[in-house]
């Protein structure tokens, strides 16, 4: 770590660990409810557990992106952050909004729109919070003597994510229009601007970990984010097939969303090729595993499994079934959770000054969480495909089908237990690194050059 203000990232990362743990807890509540054990129904009904599970995911990933930005931008621009104090205010207010929202969900206080459940008054606080963050990073970039493509791509992604939050706040009487603009937030985030953020973090990690020339990495970064927008913007159409929007979206969404895996394939090839070209043995092998793993798993989860049900004639049957949950889990894990865990793994030794590289816990955490998540995806796939054939194709009643597929949720919970074991080990490793230290400040990171 070269700059004192980079320590700020630690507090964002610690928040990530806390929110991720809570997210898993609510996941289990839902898994058990699907199996028929809904004993907590009176206190945490399914819709509350679901809102907590998905919103915590969004909040911890955003917290992770912010932490990553606070770590990366000083390093890339060779300057201290504009204001560490503002960063702390922003983190604390974000936590308050998150906690109030989560508690509110348990008392039926929400907006009830998938992924955007946070109640309106809190939405405004989120906007103020994100604007503060953007101001803080913007001023840092503005005052810096140098900027880099990596930091600019990352920043563009964050600004665009903030702007795209706004269409989700317009009220429409028509459910179709409501849904249409809700996807401007959700789709254009996760299949658009978040990929910019992911690409930026990935490029930074590859530059640091492989030692491949920055010009080469940043050139391919442009190609990949170019492909993302080329396919992803009109790819939004795959959400418009069956919501009451015009029929041409079947063709537009079908063609462009079928191209979406290309960006993820590009990302995977990019990471692998850069790794193979690597001229240096970076001691932080775990960070490298998460980085390359992220590039590969995002292709499998977001690219390949997304493609599996994106064509209109397939989606006609899978739309609104557990097949979506199958794709959703591996996509978010591969593309976004793993990139955040990668940057945390890379940053922790530098922030704390403890070269606790390649611990057994860290290695096990990587394998258990990935194997667990693949198992969960498999369980969702089996349950989802069975649901499609029984309910949609054969016309069996919903409740009967749910009873038929209950047993696959036992598989889901077993796999989720393996996954959780991995995450617990990751968090133990995180705690073992200890707190950030100014003793970690060095003119040049000895392990970087």
């Amino acid at each position, binding site marked *: 770590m070269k700059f004192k203000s980079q320590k700020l990232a630690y507090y964002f990362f610690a928040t990530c660990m806390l929110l991720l743990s809570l997210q898993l807890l609510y996941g289990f509540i839902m898994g058990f*409810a*699907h199996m*028929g054990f*809904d004993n907590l*129904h009176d206190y945490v*009904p*399914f*819709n*509350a557990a*679901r*809102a907590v599970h998905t919103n915590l995911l969004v909040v911890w990933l955003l917290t992770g992106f912010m932490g990553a930005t606070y770590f990366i931008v000083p390093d890339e621009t060779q300057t201290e952050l504009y204001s560490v104090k503002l960063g702390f205010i922003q983190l604390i207010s974000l936590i308050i909004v998150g906690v109030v929202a989560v508690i509110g969900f348990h008392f*039926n206080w*929400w*907006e*009830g*729109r*998938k992924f955007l*459940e946070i109640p309106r008054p809190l939405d405004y606080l989120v906007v103020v919070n994100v604007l503060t963050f953007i101001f803080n990073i913007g001023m840092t970039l503005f005052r810096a003597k140098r900027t880099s*493509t990596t930091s600019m791509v990352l920043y563009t992604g964050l600004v665009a994510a903030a702007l795209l939050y706004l269409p989700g706040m317009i009220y429409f009487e*028509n*459910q*179709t*229009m*409501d*849904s*249409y603009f809700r996807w401007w937030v959700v789709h254009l985030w996760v299949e658009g601007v978040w990929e910019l953020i992911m690409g930026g973090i990935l490029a930074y990690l590859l530059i640091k970990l492989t030692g491949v020339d920055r*010009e080469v990495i940043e*050139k391919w970064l*442009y*190609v990949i*984010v*170019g492909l993302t*927008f*080329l396919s992803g*913007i*009109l790819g939004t*159409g795959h959400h*418009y097939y*069956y919501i*009451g*929007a*015009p*029929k041409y979206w*079947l063709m*537009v969404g079908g063609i462009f969303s079928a191209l979406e895996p290309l960006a993820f394939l590009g990302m995977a090839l990019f990471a692998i090729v850069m790794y193979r070209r690597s001229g240096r043995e970076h001691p932080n092998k775990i960070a490298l595993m998460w980085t390359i793993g992220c590039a590969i798993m995002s292709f499998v989860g977001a690219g390949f499994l997304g493609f599996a049900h994106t064509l209109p004639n397939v989606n006609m*049957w899978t*739309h*609104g*079934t*557990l097949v979506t*949950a199958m794709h959703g889990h591996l996509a978010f894990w591969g593309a976004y959770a793993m990139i955040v865990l990668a940057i945390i793994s890379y940053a922790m030794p530098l922030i704390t000054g403890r070269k606790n590289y390649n611990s057994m816990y860290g290695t096990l955490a990587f394998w258990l969480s990935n194997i667990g998540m693949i198992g969960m995806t498999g369980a969702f796939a089996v349950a989802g495909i069975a*649901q499609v054939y029984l309910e*949609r*194709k*054969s*016309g*069996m009643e*919903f*409740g009967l089908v*749910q009873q038929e597929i209950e047993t696959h949720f036992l598989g889901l919970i077993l796999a989720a237990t393996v996954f959780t074991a991995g995450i617990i080990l990751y968090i133990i490793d995180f705690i073992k690194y200890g707190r950030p230290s100014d003793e970690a400040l060095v003119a040049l990171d000895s392990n970087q050059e």
Partner: protein
Amino acid sequence: MLSKSQARWFFIIGTIFFSGVFLWLTVDTINSVPAQTKSANITPAVNRGKIIWEENNCMGCHTIFGEGAYYAPELTKSFERRGEGYIKAALMSKTPWSPRGRKMVAYAMTEEQANDVVAFLKWAGEVDLNGFPAKPTINTSK
């Protein structure tokens, strides 16, 4: 071989072009949706029903137009499938409605609230969804 500045232009021009096409299609969609969704039928009751739908996060268990969660049935065609009486009974029940053991929150709605939700679901069932949900194609009775 591609240079960095060419790569940058590929990104910038591609993004601007496809954003432009997307905005153009959005304008067309905004103009087409009223007819396709029969928005003239969105009465104050339908709108009140939508607000009740959102305030109780019905999408946290159910889907409508295939969107939401997968814990409880798809409701787009629920008015046609179950009829007004069944839906109102589920909404007004003071104990959790639990078909086949899976519990719904006991909302204990008033008759007026339940009527509004029914109006919303009835409107939703009449929207042209480009063929969704499809009729089952496998005949299991043979």
